[in-house]
């Protein structure tokens, strides 16, 4: 019985973890400009993330070591600097965007300009991290994040054309604006496959004291959770495709996105949109700064745990405190959250090889995983994801220049 509660919880967590500022913004832009056509990118991103989460979760449950810990120990400090710096830079960009998302939600609700909300958001977030424990961060945001289901309700009420949507699950070439299409495809992949998600997930398995008994929970969480999470991102794309695309509205500013729910669901839709944007971005803010502090602490061998009082892991606690306050500054001085979001998603996509490729080595290490090493289907999938990540690295900069406008 307890197992099923954990499974349910895990699924809910990944829903809350999947939909956040990046997915909402890029899916809405994709739907507005290309209708259903980019849905296949969300399918690809969701499947890749599910596979990476299952593997990092299995690695942590069996070896009792986090991914960041093993990245340092098995690959040495010189190599470790590469993922450390890459993940730090992109995660900082993403967390700034998340604080931007929270601030925009509060602006839409109150009319008070978003830049005033950045610092208060960071302070409340810091307080929760300082006083709260891992369960509060993980489950609190997950439970509240269920409001995101309103996107699915909105999409259904707009009566999508199912066969057309079904066909969009397979890749197709655009009839116009090729550079923009591929730019959005890369952004959507960056929003779906974020290194912070699997670094957080791997540390979470240790925080929640997972053992080999939890491999089933891990598989269901990574699989089902991402199916639901990815489903909601597709719902966001569908609402934009049915509300914005026919009117030829492009998403140039965050404020326009709220119309995708206010159109099918009326006043409740506007309220649900604000709540979804607020809660999912706030939850992601906490998870990303924790993921960055985990990476630093585990890589350098400091004491770490969100379940310890800050004086027991002073460097870890100081790290997340400094990071969350630092991330509020660019929004507080008025940088445009949507521009930041788009840049961070492309940067995330470009950063993937340094965290995806080493996983292949670890997942085939019998010393760590005994009989739970990757079989050939898992290895094949990981190779495909690694190749995809290399393509993203090469394509990101040219596409940012050609299609970013």
């Amino acid at each position, binding site marked *: 019985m307890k197992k099923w509660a954990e499974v349910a919880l895990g699924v809910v967590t990944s829903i809350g973890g999947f939909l956040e500022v990046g997915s909402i913004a890029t899916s809405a832009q994709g739907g507005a400009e290309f209708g259903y056509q980019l849905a296949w990118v969300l399918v690809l991103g969701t499947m890749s993330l599910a596979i990476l989460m299952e593997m990092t979760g299995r690695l942590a449950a069996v070896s009792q070591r986090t991914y960041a810990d093993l990245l340092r120990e098995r690959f040495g400090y010189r190599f470790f600097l590469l993922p450390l710096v890459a993940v730090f830079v992109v995660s900082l960009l993403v967390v700034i965007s998340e604080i931007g998302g929270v601030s925009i939600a509060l*602006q*839409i*609700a*109150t*009319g008070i300009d978003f830049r005033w909300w950045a610092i208060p958001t960071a302070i409340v977030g810091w307080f929760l991290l300082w006083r709260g424990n891992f369960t509060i961060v993980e489950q609190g945001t997950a439970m509240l994040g269920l409001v995101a289901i309103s996107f699915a309700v909105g999409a259904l009420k707009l009566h999508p054309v199912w066969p057309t949507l079904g066909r969009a699950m397979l890749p197709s070439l655009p009839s116009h604006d090729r550079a923009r299409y591929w730019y959005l495809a890369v952004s959507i992949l960056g929003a779906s496959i974020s290194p912070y998600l699997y670094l957080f997930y791997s540390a979470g398995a240790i925080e929640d004291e997972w053992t080999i008994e939890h491999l089933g929970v891990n598989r269901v969480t990574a699989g089902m959770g991402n199916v639901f999470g990815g489903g909601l991102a597709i719902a966001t794309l569908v609402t934009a495709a049915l*509300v914005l695309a026919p*009117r*030829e*509205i*492009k998403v*140039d*500013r965050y*404020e*326009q996105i*709220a*119309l995708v729910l*206010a*159109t099918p*669901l*009326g*006043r409740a*839709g*506007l309220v649900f949109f604000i709540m979804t944007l607020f809660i999912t971005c706030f939850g992601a803010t906490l998870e990303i700064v924790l993921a960055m502090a985990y990476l630093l602490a585990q890589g350098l061998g400091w004491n770490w745990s969100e379940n310890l009082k800050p004086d027991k892991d002073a460097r870890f606690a100081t790290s997340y405190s400094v990071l969350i306050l630092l991330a509020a500054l660019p929004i507080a001085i008025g940088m445009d959250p949507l521009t930041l979001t788009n840049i961070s998603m492309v940067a995330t996509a470009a950063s993937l090889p340094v965290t995806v490729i080493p996983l292949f080595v670890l997942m085939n290490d019998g010393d760590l995983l005994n009989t739970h090493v990757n079989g050939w289907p898992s290895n094949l999938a990981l190779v495909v994801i690694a190749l995809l990540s290399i393509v993203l690295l090469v394509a990101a900069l*040219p596409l*940012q*220049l*050609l299609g*970013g*406008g």
Partner: protein
Amino acid sequence: MLQPASTRITHLYLALTVLLVGGGCGSPPPLDKQLETLASWTATMQLAKERHGAGAITITYATQLRDRADEAFQQASTTIGQSAQTHSDSAYAAAALDSLRTAIRQLEAEIGS
């Protein structure tokens, strides 16, 4: 046909410069992009007016949309002149700006500001 290495390098730099400038570092976007943006904001205003009429969105939110559209209008009215090369281009630009202005006024009338 073989070219001297220096020529090839110059071409490479030229291509890179075109890429960077074309990528939006400084110069205004081409006319068709600006027209698309104006049309997009005009449609946003019309949708906002309709949704406010149906009671779906608050005045607070509608006002923010109006402000963003206003910013887009101001920006386009300073840059679109440079992008319009011919008489007919200018006519299109003026018409697009005019539609957006009208749509903004109609939303303002709807929300009573």
